């Protein structure tokens, strides 16, 4: 079907609607929908033709004469795809705005159809003046469609829009006529050839003419300083129409700019990039302090258009990946914005927390989060693949400064979008529940399903062009997403399914891993399964828990199995997102989950930049293998190492980037905390292992990077443990202790010798076991007592003996007291530091050893020992399903304590290929290093024998011991009457705080708070730019024109 | 007559600029609108001189005719509702 039929049908229906009387409104509405469906069908048919045959685009002539003398349209793969997007957005917008259209009658419907037809015109036409006419059509149609909204400020917004459009059209007309005069033709392709022919020395006429045309069309894209008018439109217009305005007209204007850039040639590309990047970063920054949801969406859509404009500006270096990248970003933006705007129609309140009304409908929440994920470029969606290629090509061309800006903008955008998601999930639901009639749900469903489908398509594209894996087809992610469909099942069914799936996957694949990866695989899968056992205690359906958990585990196992950098990075982002959803489930976890996602995404972007830098240094193979990190050469290698190390350290919460961990782990649910703390932190460690394994020692400006990591590890260990001492909340104490332990592991890794790595691995295993156990036992106690504050508990040893035993064993293991496995870690540590060259950081590690013992004792003393409170007298033991994993862990600890060789023997051999000297040799039950040997079995026996002897002796002597209750003691010659008065728990280590308190001031938190405040105040200052007066917006536009002109002439 | 043409155009242009300035800085709205109409009329004459009759006719019919009328119509509407206390 010829593309012109789009125009014919569009106009025909519009005029036909004029015929219908007032009464046949519904007939008119049906006609409108039919027309829009037909137009979408035409472009869909073209898309199928081009996608199938891969034919290149061809021209359609009008008026029977060849192009330069008549207007021609070009229909190609890109045009077909864009027109399809525009028509579909129009169709769904019409469906969504049904009631408004019916209220305003056929004229409004005619205006809508003509608007959509004009947008298709902009995409198809190859004639400059025709482009101008269609732009004017859009201006008038937009001004008209703004009336659909019932908000009375829409009129003012429409008028401001018209004012600025007058300026734009005046400049555009002058530009066109002078360009015509200089080149002799109005056809874009003709003009392009003629422009190339004109020698640039005559910089006068044509360059300025092109400048005017270019600046006018770019102004349609609402660039940052000059877009006050657009924001009012977004805020005031009917959400259905705002979707069209941001998705469809944004797309059309972008493609128009792309056509213009063909004429302008390469020396105009930097101008486009400059405007684009300023818009992207500026709009995102200004979106931070926004409270009105539609205005925020307005800012976000302007930012995304700016990003795509930057990509347009870089098209010379992208070659044939250009449409893959620009298309990925464009479609993700369009679908996400349309979806979000349509969602905003359902929500009554206009501030962000009002969106909490969506909580009652899980499907709408899923729609919201898919749109947010699409916008921030998270894995399964097209923008993720596009972002990956964009980063790689930018760095390959040495434009890493631009990439840094883009990543900064993307981080800010992710920040305010996930903050919004946090409000949606956590805030109190407002009174009026949302009414969602079918005709408003269908468009949202279409947008979301479109997003996921495009995610699959882009996956196929990226696997065929670049050899990347199509994420949606990988087994773990597929398994995780099936849980989305099974979410209506009861929790225990899903739990069994999950555990079964994980164990099955492990049994299928455990042969492939080398010893190091095997340990991590065991922890992630088998460890995950054991931790999931604790989830049996929850009854009901736990909507959203299992998809998130499975997403996290899928991300982790894919991380291990990833051999190339793309798989690694995709897995990294998957586990980040999965863990974010898990953490967000906690009752008060909203701010912490937000800081977690922002830090993790910041780290992920660093890793992305690192891989891009690495890929640019290596000859361009389709996929950059992780192993290739090893042969990076000097100028690039230290920077890659720095970026990747920083990225991984955000995940292991090294000091400086640790502030998200306490909140995230403490506020998470009972069975989520062990998962997040025991298992997730190991992903960061695995990253560091891979990095150090491949890149070894690097030095930047003469500074040994591994030495710096050594110090960071030592400081983290000390401060992590020190902060843990002063915590009143049990889970926060354990969270800070995780930071400390991770500092230990980082220290071990950074020692860069055989035993250091062995110690780190020993730590990985030990830390998983006892941290999960401690979190579970504390979680069980918190569930029973209802509070996490330690001074409110006390004396629970009699009521919850099993939890006590688990915590006791955990404490002995963590503090490294001989019989248990903790001592093994310490022993290897000693041997390691004897051989290591750097000695000063050891001091901090020595100090953090005993300090670790302090806060652990505080944990067990305040919870289990001391005085039992009256209200806890009738507490039962923690639920069975929380106790069971703890007992498994106790048994595991015993096994690892007695026979550490079973686990570490193979790993020792594996590490020796990196560090041949200093290997331990294991024979029988003794382990000898060059300094001494350690026989865990013998120690266990000796200590056991002495212990039993004395215990027997005491039993014999005290046969008739009289059991006395806790409360029965004399205290300064009186019998205490209230247990609370004698339970010493509050500010347990007061002397330590007096002595070492200065080390624990929250410098880092204050630093990050200062950074965010800076961004917010900057945004608030610049926000005053938009004072609502249409004339000032006209001023801004002219200022923008003059500024870009001087910038261009200056360049 | 053809040698007179350049002088005629100059005169015409000056008149147009003066009318435009009046339209912008004019005291009351009606005078401004009339001045704009005048600018449009003079423009159509200028188009004739520049050998484009079609445009001259359009400018005359639509530019000066209809636009000026639209302005007066709206001005009338605003004026009338102004003095009788404005619409409810």
């Amino acid at each position: 079907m010829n593309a012109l039929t789009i125009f014919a049908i569009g106009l025909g229906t519009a005029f036909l609607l004029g015929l219908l009387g007032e009464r046949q409104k519904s007939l008119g509405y049906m006609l409108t929908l039919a027309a829009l469906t037909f137009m979408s069908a035409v472009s869909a048919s073209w898309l199928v033709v081009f996608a199938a045959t891969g034919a290149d685009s061809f021209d359609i002539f009008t008026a029977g004469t060849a192009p330069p003398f008549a207007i021609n349209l070009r229909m190609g793969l890109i045009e077909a795809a864009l027109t399809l997007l525009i028509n579909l957005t129009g169709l769904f917008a019409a469906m969504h705005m049904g009631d408004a259209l019916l209220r305003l009658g056929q004229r409004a419907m005619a205006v809508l159809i003509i608007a959509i037809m004009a947008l298709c015109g902009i995409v198809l036409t190859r004639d400059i003046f025709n482009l101008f006419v269609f732009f004017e059509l859009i201006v008038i149609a937009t001004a008209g469609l703004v009336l659909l909204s019932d908000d009375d400020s829409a009129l003012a917004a429409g008028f401001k829009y018209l004012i600025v459009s007058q300026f734009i059209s005046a400049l555009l007309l002058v530009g066109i006529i002078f360009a015509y005069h200089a080149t002799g033709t109005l056809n874009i392709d003709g003009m392009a050839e003629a422009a190339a022919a004109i020698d640039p020395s005559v910089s006068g006429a044509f360059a300025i003419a092109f400048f005017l045309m270019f600046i006018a069309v770019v102004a349609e894209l609402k660039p940052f300083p000059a877009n006050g008018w657009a924001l009012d439109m977004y805020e005031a217009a009917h959400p259905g129409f705002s979707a069209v305005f941001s998705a469809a007209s944004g797309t059309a204007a972008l493609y128009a700019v792309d056509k213009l850039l063909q004429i302008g040639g390469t020396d105009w590309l930097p101008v486009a990039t400059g405007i684009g990047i300023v818009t992207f970063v500026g709009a995102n920054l200004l979106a931070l302090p926004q409270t009105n949801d539609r205005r925020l969406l307005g800012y976000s859509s302007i930012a995304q258009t700016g990003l795509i404009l930057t990509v347009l500006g870089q098209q010379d270096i992208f070659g044939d990946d250009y449409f893959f990248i620009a298309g990925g970003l464009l479609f993700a933006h369009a679908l996400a914005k349309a979806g979000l705007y349509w969602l905003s129609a359902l929500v009554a309140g206009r501030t962000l927390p009002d969106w909490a009304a969506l909580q009652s409908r899980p499907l709408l929440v899923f729609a919201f989060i898919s749109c947010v994920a699409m916008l921030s470029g998270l894995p399964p969606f097209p923008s993720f693949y596009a972002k990956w290629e964009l980063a790689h090509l930018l760095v390959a061309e040495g434009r890493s400064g631009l990439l840094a800006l883009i990543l900064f903008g993307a981080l800010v955008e992710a920040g305010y979008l996930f903050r919004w998601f946090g409000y949606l999930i956590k805030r109190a639901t407002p009174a009026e529940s949302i009414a969602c009639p079918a005709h408003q749900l269908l468009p949202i469903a279409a947008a979301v399903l479109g997003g996921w489908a495009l995610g699959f398509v882009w996956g196929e594209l990226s696997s065929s062009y670049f050899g990347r894996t199509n994420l949606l087809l990988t087994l773990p992610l597929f398994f995780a997403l099936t849980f989305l469909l099974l979410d209506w099942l009861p929790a225990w069914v899903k739990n069994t399914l999950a555990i079964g799936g994980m164990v099955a996957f492990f049994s299928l694949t455990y042969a492939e891993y080398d010893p190091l990866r095997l340990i991590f695989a065991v922890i992630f899968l088998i460890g995950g399964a054991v931790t999931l056992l604790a989830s049996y205690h929850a009854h009901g359906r736990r909507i959203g828990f299992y998809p998130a958990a499975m997403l996290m585990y899928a991300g982790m196992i894919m991380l291990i199995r990833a051999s190339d950098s793309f798989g690694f990075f995709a897995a990294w982002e998957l586990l980040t997102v999965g863990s974010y959803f898990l953490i967000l489930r906690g009752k008060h976890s909203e701010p912490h989950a937000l800081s977690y996602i922002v830090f993790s995404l910041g780290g992920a972007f660093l890793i992305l930049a690192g891989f891009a830098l690495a890929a640019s240094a290596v000859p361009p193979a389709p996929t950059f293998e992780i192993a290739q990190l090893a042969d990076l050469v000097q100028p690039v290698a230290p920077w890659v190492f720095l970026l990747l190390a920083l990225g991984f350290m955000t995940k292991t919460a090294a000091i400086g980037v640790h502030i998200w961990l306490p909140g995230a782990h403490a506020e998470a649910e009972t069975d989520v905390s062990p998962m997040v703390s025991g298992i997730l932190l190991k992903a960061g460690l695995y990253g560091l292992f891979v990095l150090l394994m491949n890149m070894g020692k690097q030095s930047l400006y003469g500074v040994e990077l591994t030495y710096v990591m050594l110090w960071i590890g030592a400081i983290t260990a000390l401060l992590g443990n020190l902060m843990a001492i002063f915590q009143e909340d049990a889970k926060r104490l354990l969270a800070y202790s995780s930071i400390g332990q991770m500092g230990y592991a980082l220290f071990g890794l950074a020692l860069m010798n055989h035993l250091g790595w062995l110690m780190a691995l020993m730590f990985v295993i030990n830390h998983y076991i006892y941290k999960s156990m401690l979190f579970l036992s504390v979680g069980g106690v918190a569930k029973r007592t209802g509070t996490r504050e330690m001074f409110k508990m006390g004396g629970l040893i009699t009521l919850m003996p099993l939890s006590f035993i688990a915590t006791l064993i955990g404490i002995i293991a963590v503090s490294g007291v001989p019989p248990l496995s903790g001592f093994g870690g310490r022993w290897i540590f000693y041997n390691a530091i004897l051989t290591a060259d750097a000695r000063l950081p050891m001091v901090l590690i020595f100090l953090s050893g005993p300090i670790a013992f302090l806060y652990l004792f505080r944990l067990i003393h305040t919870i289990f020992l001391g005085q039992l409170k009256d209200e806890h007298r009738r507490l039962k033991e923690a639920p069975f399903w929380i106790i069971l994993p703890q007992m498994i862990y106790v048994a595991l600890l015993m096994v690892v304590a007695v026979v550490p060789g079973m686990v570490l023997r193979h790993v020792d051999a594996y590490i020796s290929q990196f560090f041949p000297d200093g290997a331990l040799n294991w024979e029988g039950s003794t382990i000898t290093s060059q300094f001494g040997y350690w026989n865990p079995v013998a120690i266990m026996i000796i200590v056991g024998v002495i212990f039993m002897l004395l215990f027997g002796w005491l039993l014999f002597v005290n046969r008739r011991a009289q059991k006395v209750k806790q409360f029965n003691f004399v205290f300064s010659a009186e019998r205490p009457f209230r247990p609370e008065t004698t339970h010493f728990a509050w500010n347990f280590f007061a002397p330590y705080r007096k002595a070492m308190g200065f080390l624990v001031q929250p410098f880092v938190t204050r630093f990050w708070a200062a950074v965010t405040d800076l961004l917010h105040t900057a945004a608030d200052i610049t926000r005053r730019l938009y004072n609502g007066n249409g004339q000032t917006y006209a001023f801004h536009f002219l200022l923008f024109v003059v500024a870009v002109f001087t910038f261009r002439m200056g360049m | 007559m053809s040698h007179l043409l350049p002088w005629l155009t100059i005169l015409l242009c000056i008149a147009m600029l003066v009318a435009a300035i009046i339209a912008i800085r004019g005291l009351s709205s009606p005078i401004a609108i009339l001045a704009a109409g005048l600018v449009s009329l003079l423009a159509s004459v200028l188009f004739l001189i520049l050998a484009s009759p079609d445009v001259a006719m359009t400018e005359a019919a639509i530019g000066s005719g209809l636009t000026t009328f639209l302005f007066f119509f709206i001005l009338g509407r605003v004026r009338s509702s102004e003095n009788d206390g404005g619409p409810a």
Partner: protein
Amino acid sequence: MIKRAVALVLLLMLGGIFATLMLGYTPDSELNLTARYYAERTAADLGAANIVTAIVVTYRGLDTLGEVTVLFLSASIVGLVLASNRRPALRVRTPVGELLTTGARFLVPLILLLGVYVFVNGHLTPGGGFQGGAIIASGVLLLLLADPLRHFSHHVIATVESLAGLFYVAIGLAGLFLAGGFLDNRLWPIGTLGELFSAGAIPLIYSLIGLKVGAEFSSMLASLSETEEL
């Protein structure tokens, strides 16, 4: 005061840009590529005497189609904008001057005739659909001024407008299937240059445009007058 100063500075800079644009402009002595093609081929291909009309209607037919839609849009939007406060026109108006009513009765048919003449001879003499339509609209305007109480049936204007639009699109499509391309005027024999029935479909198209533009302007004026109240 600062606003004026800033405005002046800005416009000076813009003026600078325009000045450099103008200095770079050299009127070319020969017709450029496209203009020469039009000059040579219009008479032979389309048989239209007025080259500008040929360009407007056939060569850049899509522009004109867009053009007409612009008017259609602004008419319907003005209707939308002003429709919301439609009051029953039950007002008594001071009787209109004698001179106006009789003059109107005499002049209106003449104006309509002139309008029709203009857009029918669009392809021969200067002028065409837009100018003719405007003249007809001014005729309708005169009627309105003369007799403000006359209630123009919106339905009539709307049907005229829509039918004209539909026929225009139909001719375009016909051109696509029968003749060379969309909006091609060689549906009918182009006849001899200068004849009334020459240049294929151009006269038909232009008269349709004339009717449509006239209808749109008058609907705009009618909706404006409808909101008239005491």
